């Protein structure tokens, strides 16, 4: 393999890759992201490969197994280019028909197209589907075109041109100025301007300097970084080399969580290939700039996403955060000046260098520029990864892109920012999604998790869920976090079991204030957010739990009961057979069945089994078999 020792050499490789691409009549791209893997895409891919082989189509048809294309809900996904046909929910059996119809007869297979839920029209092309139409794909733009293990595919989309421009046309100061001018704010959640961070680090006298990429992505409900690394690792590597040039670092680390085996694999592989091409290592692209990268595998600890803890973890130690200042740009990895940015931040860097700060600034709001990737998940029709311009409203995201709430349910809130964020109620859905507005509403941008909650989601249970998570993930170094979170969790648990008092809400707010003021690191500091935001916006739900002993959303097992509607019950016996605790009485074909709520554990199995929708969840206590009394007596 020839090393790239000049911009001309790179250009030649890019042209060769484009030519190679043009030799094929069409490309069938299958999404091989983890979401589609979960929907069984591997079997479809195997079938596709063997059918293409069998039909001797290998010369004219190229197959690409890409990273995540975003619309995970509808996976396994396939796009055929240049035709543009977009097929969803594929099964291996669909492959022969696709090859015959779309490849040979140039017609689309209607039954595999996406159906617009509103108009019931079939939509052929990806870009016309509402889920994609309202997006602004920058970092994510090429995910659907690139086979992550093929550097040629990255060359084909002008990959590494930004690096050539950086090394041959710009000084490190130029790069920093351009990034500051673009106002690229950290995509990991806090929103600190990346260019300023680089500038501070460059100003430090201590050597060597280090660069690190945070791909720990511990927020439950978020998987953007995983999908970028899995789908387009060279983009991140290119962004990192540019940043390293700007700050004067010669060694960098990509810290990936071990739960993401495919991201680890693709990143390691891409680093190796980049090294072979002379894009990493000594004398990059024939210049005197040298920089190398290494993958550091995390071992599953949420706190390791905190910058000082992450650096301890890269050093091979326990990820305990430390007091700041000194900031990482002064004393980071191995005590040396270190810049830590998130995957998505690095992903934006080559785009800014290529298109300029003015272009980047033309997208977004006054203080939040560019686009942001979110994982739109939870109780929403179109789940998946979306990249939207800053300043888009939550309403547009949930309803236009997300297609609303499944089953005609009513939306209740959107949770952003993971365990550090908060829940934003439906009446605030017109606020613009950017760093500042979300913080004002008591949540935060976070890394990009966006979990939609409907009327069946209990907000007290959600707050409890996050605290339970944080209790496990607290490192235990500082007292407020170590003891405060379990105490709050205790109170929330009591409330969900019907043992709460009005005083509990005051206590929760009180402890929250103390933790916020005194915790050592960001984890503790933001830990009360899910509780505070739910108390602020959903106080009535807390009060229903406390005063009425009822969970209005029908979630908390002690504060609900199940009831069979005698009108609807056909005495089919299914529920009785399915009940794991024998709480249902009745004879097949006889009187309507009856659930004994003294025995029932509210597991929901009977509701799933009942074909007549005859079993309902009722918030509150059933007379004669009050569950809360049972708890009190224990």
């Amino acid at each position, binding site marked *: 393999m020839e090393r790239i020792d000049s911009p001309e050499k790179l250009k030649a490789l890019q042209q060769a890759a484009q030519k190679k691409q043009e030799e094929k009549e069409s490309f069938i791209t299958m999404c091989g992201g983890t979401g589609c893997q979960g929907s069984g895409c591997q079997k479809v891919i195997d079938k596709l490969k063997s059918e293409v082989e069998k039909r001797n189509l290998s010369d004219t048809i190229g197959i690409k197994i890409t990273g995540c294309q975003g619309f995970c809900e509808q996976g396994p996904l396939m796009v055929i280019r240049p035709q543009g046909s977009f097929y969803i929910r594929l099964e291996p059996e669909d492959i022969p028909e696709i090859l015959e119809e779309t490849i040979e007869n140039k017609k689309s297979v209607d039954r595999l197209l996406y159906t617009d839920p509103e108009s019931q029209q079939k939509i052929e092309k990806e870009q016309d589907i509402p889920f994609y139409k309202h997006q602004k794909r920058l970092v994510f733009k090429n995910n659907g075109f690139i086979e992550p293990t093929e550097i040629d595919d990255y060359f084909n989309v002008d990959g590494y041109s930004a690096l050539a421009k950086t090394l041959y046309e710009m000084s490190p100061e130029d790069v920093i100025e351009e990034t500051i001018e673009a106002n690229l704010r950290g995509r990991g959640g806090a929103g600190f301007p990346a260019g300023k961070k680089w500038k501070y680090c460059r100003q430090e006298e201590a050597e060597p300097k280090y660069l690190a990429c945070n791909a720990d992505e511990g927020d439950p409900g978020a998987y953007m970084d995983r999908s970028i690394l899995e789908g387009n690792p060279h983009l991140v590597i290119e962004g990192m080399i540019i940043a390293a040039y700007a700050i004067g670092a010669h060694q960098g680390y990509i810290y990936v969580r071990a739960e993401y085996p495919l991201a680890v694999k693709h990143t390691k592989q891409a680093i190796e290939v980049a090294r072979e091409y002379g894009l990493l290592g000594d004398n990059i692209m024939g210049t005197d700039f040298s920089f190398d990268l290494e993958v550091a595998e995390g071992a599953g600890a949420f706190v390791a996403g905190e910058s000082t803890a992450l650096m301890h973890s890269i050093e091979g130690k326990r990820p305990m955060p430390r007091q700041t200042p000194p900031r990482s740009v002064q004393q980071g990895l191995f005590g040396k000046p270190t810049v830590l940015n998130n995957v998505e931040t690095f992903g934006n860097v080559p785009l800014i260098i290529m298109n300029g700060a003015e272009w980047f600034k033309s997208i977004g709001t006054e203080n939040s520029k560019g686009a942001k990737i979110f994982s739109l998940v939870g109780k929403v029709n179109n789940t998946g990864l979306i990249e939207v311009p800053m300043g888009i409203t939550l309403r547009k995201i949930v309803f236009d892109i997300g297609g609303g709430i499944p089953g005609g349910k009513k939306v209740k809130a959107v949770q952003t920012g993971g365990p550090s964020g908060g829940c934003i109620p439906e009446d605030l859905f017109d606020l613009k999604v950017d760093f500042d507005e979300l913080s004002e509403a008591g949540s935060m941008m976070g890394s990009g998790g966006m979990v939609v909650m409907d009327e069946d989601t209990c907000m007290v249970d959600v707050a409890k869920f996050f605290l339970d998570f944080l209790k496990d993930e607290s490192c235990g170094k500082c007292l407020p976090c170590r003891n405060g979170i379990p105490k709050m969790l205790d109170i929330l648990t009591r409330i969900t079991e019907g043992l709460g008092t009005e005083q509990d809400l005051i206590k929760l707010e009180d402890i929250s204030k103390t933790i916020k003021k005194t915790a050592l690191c960001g984890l503790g500091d933001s830990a009360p957010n899910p509780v505070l935001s739910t108390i602020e916006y959903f106080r009535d739900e807390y009060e229903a739990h406390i005063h009425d002993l009822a969970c209005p959303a029908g979630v908390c097992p002690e504060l609900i009961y199940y009831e069979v509607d005698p009108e609807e019950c056909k005495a089919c016996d299914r529920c009785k057979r399915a009940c794991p605790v024998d709480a249902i009485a009745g004879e097949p074909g006889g009187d309507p069945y009856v659930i004994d709520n003294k025995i029932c554990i509210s597991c*929901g199995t009977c509701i799933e089994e009942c074909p007549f929708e005859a079993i309902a969840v009722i918030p509150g206590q059933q007379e004669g078999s009050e569950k809360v009394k049972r708890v009190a007596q224990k």
Partner: protein
Amino acid sequence: MAFETEELKAIDKIIAENLASKDQQKSPLLPVLQDIQKFYGWLPEKALIRASQKLSVPLVSLYGIASFYNEFRLKPLGDYHIVVCTGTACHVRGAPLLVSELERTLGIQVGEVTPDQKFSLETARCVGTCAVAPVIIVDGEYHGKISKKEVQQLVTELREEGE
């Protein structure tokens, strides 16, 4: 708990390789534990003791790291290892009910192994496949949008497969 010769060689090799890493500034503790776990699938006490001796590090420091990170296991897995994702998206789509269903079906709690060593059950904080929630992972294979009924079927199939 004695070592087989091969085993001992493998552990010593892991330690030697990590000590020889070019990055001398880095503490070898985390990577050594990761490699030992890759070898066994978990961290047996004897291997930790060996590592502690070879690295001249107190056993408690190794235990500190092993118990801090979620990835490490101090118990072996079952033949089939089931992980239920309990991230936010899975939580609001019913993951807690899947967990209790599996606990009932397998007769063990999260973190335990069935007496016949066939199944082990764990929860994960988020496996990053939120769009197809709820998700369970069986021996590394992702099953998205899974219902309680499908979980039952899956366990039944695995039980039969093992017989």
